[in-house]
């Protein structure tokens, strides 16, 4: 009988503790963390995909023999991410309207990107075909007109053809309208020509019209494809969402903490009352309270850990930041690719012209060979040969044979330029070169130097002072890339000064327990303004066509990823010293 109130109190304490435990579990914010992190991750994935999608489309644009399968392959992934975000708590849950609207805008932008890409693909296919065919159509038409001795129309067509080409180089809406009117006029006069002319004329006009109509559409769809406003909105969305979430969480946590304290006090009171129920019961109650407390510590810690994770470190922060620079990047890329494409096109035209002239010459030659066989009069023979010699001379002039090698070189250069841009982009976006291993930084320096050799002006001295440092853990390929980029930059800085006593010093050492690598040059140096922006992606001081502005962004991304830091010192006019440090890790005993 004596024990009864004790047991009763104990049962009450247990029940209350149970309720407390239930409350704790129920209010665990961990579930929320996962939802939050998932949403952030999905937004970031979609941003990255949006950018990569644009690049894939551009890549097809500049690569012969390519197909759109890869561009189309983004569709299902983009679709899934869009769907996931569309039904997430960010879209449907209890979040502020502004946040919801931002998300909707973001998703709409992605959707319109999809549409732009489709329009780009269709326009591109048609323009590509007509660009190829128009010169042929124009030539066929000209041959027919000349056969008929219709010089007036032949000149007319040549002029129209040239103006069409000029329009394609520099499309503007005024010229577009004029040309279309002229095409229509020609179309109406078609009946006046005999069929042998009307057919090629019809072909010529159709393609000229397609090009003049579609070129502007194509250009505008390309612009939309490379438009990365979605990424910017995504950035804003993420930052607003983060702020909202951490505020909400703090509030939630505060409330939970107060409730928890109250509950704890109540539980202690109950426990004290339970003491009166008897020593044994008291001991049991005490054990219980201890367990409870231990559980609380663990959970608090787990919560803090999860919150830290959610607020940032799980995604590549540099990529994240680079999204803001994406707009600039896309302008650069479009420009970098379009410029060489432009002169590749016009040089091709010259080559084409030259080849045609050569063709005529060769035909003439085989005719000459035939005729000579049947001739016996030496005067006649020598006059034919003289005529042929004149033709050879003319061809040489008209076909600009002397200039052809230079033109081909130019084209080669253009192609290399494009390849360079694409390669840099590849390096920047590549995240799979992370075959990690233990490696010796000295070997890295040596192989990087080999690879960067051709960028270094002859006469520039390279000094190496490579101290023995502990092996480093990471991706040797990536660190190699870092070194190549730094050496290239040093070489270019020296080249810019025109000095003949160029010097690049590469040093490795162990400083404060870190592996330090320094690449120093006596080149032009970097002013303060430039220093501030130098690690931003797509920032470049080099002339158009000389740099993509990704080199140092790649350097920073890689070094940061390895847990290191990049620093630079520079005196304008005197030189620059880039230093990066990598942490030393202990190689596990095997």
């Amino acid at each position: 009988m004596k024990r009864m109130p004790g047991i009763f109190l104990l049962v009450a304490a247990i029940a209350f503790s149970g309720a407390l435990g239930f409350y704790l579990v129920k209010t665990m914010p961990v579930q929320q963390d996962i939802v939050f992190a998932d949403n952030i991750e999905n937004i970031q994935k979609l941003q990255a995909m949006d950018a990569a999608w644009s690049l894939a489309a551009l890549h097809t644009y500049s690569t012969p023999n390519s197909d759109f399968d890869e561009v189309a392959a983004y569709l299902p992934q983009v679709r899934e991410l869009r769907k996931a975000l569309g039904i997430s708590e960010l879209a449907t849950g209890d979040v502020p309207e502004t946040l919801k609207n931002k998300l909707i805008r973001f998703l709409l932008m992605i959707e319109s990107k999809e549409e732009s890409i489709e329009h780009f693909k269709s326009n591109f296919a048609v323009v590509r075909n007509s660009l190829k065919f128009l010169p042929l159509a124009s030539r066929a038409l000209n041959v027919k007109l000349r056969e008929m001795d219709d010089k007036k129309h032949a000149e007319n067509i040549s002029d129209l053809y040239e103006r069409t080409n000029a329009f394609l180089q520099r499309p503007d809406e005024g010229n577009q309208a004029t040309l279309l009117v002229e095409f229509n006029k020609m179309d109406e006069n078609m009946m006046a020509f005999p069929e042998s002319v009307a057919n090629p004329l019809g072909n010529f006009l159709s393609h000229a019209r397609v090009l003049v109509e579609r070129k502007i559409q194509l250009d505008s769809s390309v612009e939309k494809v490379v438009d990365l406003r979605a990424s910017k909105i995504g950035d804003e969305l993420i930052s607003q969402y983060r702020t909202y979430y951490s505020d909400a969480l703090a509030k939630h946590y505060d409330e939970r903490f107060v409730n928890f304290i109250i509950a704890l006090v109540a539980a202690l009171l109950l426990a004290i009352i339970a003491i009166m129920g008897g020593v044994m019961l008291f001991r049991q109650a005490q054990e219980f309270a201890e367990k409870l407390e231990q559980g609380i510590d663990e959970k608090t810690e787990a919560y803090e850990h999860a919150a830290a994770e959610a607020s940032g470190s799980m995604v590549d922060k540099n990529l994240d930041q680079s999204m803001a620079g994406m707009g600039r990047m896309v302008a650069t890329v479009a420009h970098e690719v379009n410029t060489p494409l432009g002169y590749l096109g016009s040089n091709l035209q010259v080559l084409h012209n030259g080849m045609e002239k050569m063709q005529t010459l060769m035909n003439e030659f085989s005719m000459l060979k035939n005729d000579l066989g049947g001739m016996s009069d030496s005067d006649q023979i020598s006059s034919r040969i003289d005529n042929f010699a004149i033709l050879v001379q003319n061809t040489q002039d008209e076909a600009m044979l002397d200039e052809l090698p230079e033109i081909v070189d130019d084209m080669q250069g253009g192609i290399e330029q494009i390849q360079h841009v694409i390669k840099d982009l590849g390096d920047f976006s590549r995240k799979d070169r992370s075959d990690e291993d233990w490696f010796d930084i000295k070997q890295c320096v040596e192989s990087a130097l080999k690879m960067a050799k051709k960028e270094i002006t002859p006469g520039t001295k390279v000094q190496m002072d490579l101290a023995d440092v502990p092996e480093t853990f990471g991706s040797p390929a990536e660190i190699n890339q870092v070194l190549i980029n730094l050496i290239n930059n040093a070489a270019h800085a020296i080249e810019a000064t025109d000095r003949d006593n160029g010097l690049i010093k590469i040093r490795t050492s162990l400083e404060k327990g870190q592996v330090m690598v320094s690449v120093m040059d006596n080149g032009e140096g970097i002013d303060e303004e430039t220093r501030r922006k130098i690690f931003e992606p797509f920032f470049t001081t080099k002339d158009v066509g000389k740099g993509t502005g990704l080199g140092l962004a790649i350097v920073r991304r890689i070094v940061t990823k390895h847990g290191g830091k990049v620093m630079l010192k520079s005196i304008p006019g005197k030189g620059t010293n880039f230093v990066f440090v990598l942490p030393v890790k202990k190689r596990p005993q095997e």
Partner: protein
Amino acid sequence: MMLTTRRTLKSSKHSTWQLACGFKLCLLGLAMMCSSQVLAGEPLLNEPIKPIPLTVDVDPKKVALGRLLFHDPQLSADNTVSCATCHDLKTGGVDRVKFSKGIKGRMGKINTPTVYNSGLLFRQFWDGRAETLEDQVDGPVQNPVEMGSQWPDVLAKLYDDEKYPGMFKAIYEDGITRDNVKNVIAEFQRSLITPNSRFDQYLRGDENAITAREKHGYKLFKRYGCVSCHQGVAVGGNMFQLFGAVNSYFKVRGNITEADMGRFNVTGNPEDKHVFKVPSLRMVALTPPYLHDGTAKTMRDAEDVMFKFQLGRKAPDDDIEAMVEFLKTLAGEHPEMK
């Protein structure tokens, strides 16, 4: 990021993409070692057409169930029409008529495309209105001139059937649902790829897999610009294009129907008028008549239309015929075709 996709493609099990990519790496190495020397038996990787993967990663249980449903007329309102009625797997995945007939003899409004290789297409239907094969299933099942069904009726019929409830339960916890029916049918469709065509063997490095004439046809196919749209693994099916890109097709043909408006019906964007998904040419030799309106009776007819309206140029008869020869090498193999 561009590489991310490639990686996903590569990582799909047993995929020939993997093979192709593997080869690509080897070849890069080779190319570096012996610069421009051409080796016999090298796969042709830098072509705008790619071989169909030899196998596809599908769930055999779903495929088996999807196959049953594909052939089951219970999907239609009056139990007379199954998917296979119009998509006869023995005749190239189509019924080879201009427009197919649905329930009660009702006439369709657009030519039936083949189901073979539909898993390789970037969207479904001529106007691309379905983004996935699953979504596509809704179309014919509910279309009043095709199967004319309502989902609840279809599901009720399947519940009462003696074989279906068990088969669904063995795959899905929630048994027969609309989504699950769509999923198994789609999975069956995904299994309908036709790899190992003679042309694919050629792409994979067997130079003698196609004749000199067929190679010539392929060269012309590229030179005339057909490949600007009919490209990739399905030789089409990865983009939209205006029908009448160079000369107006509909002005000449006249009598414009709703189906002729193409993608405009989906987006409402005037730029999308008469825009259609570029059809895959993989099964072209087996699937006459051609074009969305089924007006081209032979491959030759279709090529004539393409040359006139899409390419805006003329080709000699011999070239057209050589291209027909090439197109005949594109269809591959599938057990259902026999």
